[in-house]
């Protein structure tokens, strides 16, 4: 078991290094040169200006040396300065990260609150009307883009209920009520968009587990259906579900970009879009790095929870 943990953690390192390498090289290999793109619109740049910019973007000198210098900076928590504000990128990220993390977690919770009960009921009542409705719902949810749900919520929320998303955003520790007012709709929408996959998976794994011999034993010894499902079936059916929740983290990260932009939330996603628009490459690199790291770490976490749920993997 310990060996498994250590192995998994060590295997994560090349992945992290790969991430930093690609993020570094993508800007360096830019076709037609980053500098041209940055100064492009403002006209001509003096050779000195170009040189200063090249130095800042790690574009000059030997690739290997500059990469090592740059990643040493990462280890010290130095992602460079934003071109637009000239403040350290890490400072920007720190201000923005809480919104995105909160939105992501709320969305994951929402997707499970929707998907698990529906999936379980659908499996237990296989081929009933409830099951057919639940399956149609999950298939439909797989085809609906979250940004369209968000637009419909804003449009028809206004037309039917006179509801508009709050204009001002408050941090959760400053004003919890106002914070939740800003976040519950986007979180619910992102959660609904995620729940289609999860519903289908929950249903099929629960059906599979329900056919196992030990479930028949539990029923034969007179256990009530409710506790059979909750205690015997759920624990085993949840293993693949946990994996999929892990696999959904990249989707959540992408989804927050879209929803933050629609609902005007000051998170990492809207920061990414602003930075891209202004060609603020250090800031863009920062967001890509931090979200990539989050994805890698959650994958690790999922792999590490496996043996706790399924003793056979130990």
């Amino acid at each position, binding site marked *: 078991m310990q060996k498994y943990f250590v192995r998994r953690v060590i*295997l994560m390192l*090349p*992945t992290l290094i*790969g*991430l930093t390498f*690609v*993020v570094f090289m*993508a*800007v360096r290999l*830019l*076709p037609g040169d*980053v500098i041209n793109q940055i100064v492009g619109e403002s006209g001509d740049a003096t050779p000195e200006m170009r040189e200063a910019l090249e130095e800042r973007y790690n574009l000059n000198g030997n690739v290997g040396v500059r990469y090592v210098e740059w990643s040493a900076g990462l280890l010290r928590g130095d992602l460079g300065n934003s071109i637009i504000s000239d403040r350290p990128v890490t400072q920007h990220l720190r201000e923005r990260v809480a919104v995105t993390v909160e939105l992501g977690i709320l969305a994951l919770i929402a997707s499970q609150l929707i998907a698990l009960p529906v999936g379980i009921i659908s499996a237990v009542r296989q081929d009933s009307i409830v099951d057919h409705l639940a*399956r149609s719902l999950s*298939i*439909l949810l*797989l*085809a*609906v*883009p*979250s*940004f*369209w749900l968000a*637009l*419909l919520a*804003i*449009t*028809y929320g*206004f*037309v039917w209920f006179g509801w*508009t998303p709050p204009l001002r955003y408050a941090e959760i520790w400053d004003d919890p009520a106002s914070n939740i007012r800003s976040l519950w709709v986007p979180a619910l929408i992102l959660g609904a968009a995620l729940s289609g996959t999860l519903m*289908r998976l929950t*249903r*099929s794994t629960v059906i599979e587990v329900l056919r196992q011999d030990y479930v028949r034993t539990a029923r034969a010894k007179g256990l009530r259906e409710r506790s059979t499902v909750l205690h015997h079936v759920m624990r085993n059916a949840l293993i693949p579900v946990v994996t999929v929740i892990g696999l959904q*983290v*990249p*989707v959540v*990260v*992408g*989804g927050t*970009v*879209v929803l933050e*932009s*629609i609902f005007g939330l000051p998170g990492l996603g809207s920061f*990414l*879009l602003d930075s*891209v628009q202004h*060609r603020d*490459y250090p800031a*863009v*690199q920062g*967001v*890509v790095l931090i*979200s*990539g790291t*989050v*994805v*890698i770490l959650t*994958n690790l976490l999922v792999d590490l929870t496996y043996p706790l749920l399924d003793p056979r993997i130990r």
Partner: protein
Amino acid sequence: MRALRDFIRYKPVGAFGLAVILALLVTAAIPGVIAPSHYSDFDLLNRFQDPSSSHIFGTDNQGRDVFSRVVYGARTSVTIGLGVVLLAAVFSTTIGLVSGYYGKLPDLIIQRLIDIWQAFPGLIFIIFLLSIFSPSQLTLIVALGVLFTAGSSRVIRSSVLQVKQGLFVEAARSTGASDTRILLRHILPNIAPILIINASVQIGAVILVETSLSFLGFGIPPPFPSWGGMLQAAQPDMQQHPYLALFPGLAIVLTVYSFNMLGDALRDVLDPRMRGMR
């Protein structure tokens, strides 16, 4: 013909998907014939007309016919969807064949690289790439194709692992066939159903990502319409004119739903092991 009749009879939902997709392909091929007007024909005197018999989906902020723009937008989603799936199929088949067939060290190295590849948060990474390489139809297809390669290559690798155990592979090798010949003439035809299933299941997801990117402003450049781009442009006016937010979105949902249903039905028909699974 008989196969098609059976498909319609036993897989009605899949057949519905197929019918919608055929209609969509025709629309994408000859939008000019179907649309009542050109996608950029504007009429500033008739802005924001509600849906009516002359403009069945209404008109937008420049008085352009929304129905015509939805029709032309089909070309964007279909071209990018098919292009990405084809590109991803070529990449992932090559990677899957090499990794699965040769095994050992090449397999180990390739699989670790795929791990890294899959660790990237897809949408964010594509935005990153498109901020560097300016968005065009081609860059979109390449970026999305690369993104969707990783997952498929895993699926293909595992079926190669299975197929290469077959006696016919052994037989081919004993007659002195080269690795390339075995891969292309013996293994590839046997994994073809997996390729088709994988592509048809994937295309819905590709179109969803494409519309999200277009919505965020990273799609094909205007004025050519895309469904995501139309929804983005509708944002300031949609509370007064809800139909602007409605129709392009319905087009996306119908398209993705149809591809998903066709994919599911094809999987049931082509892959007997998956029969009856959902």
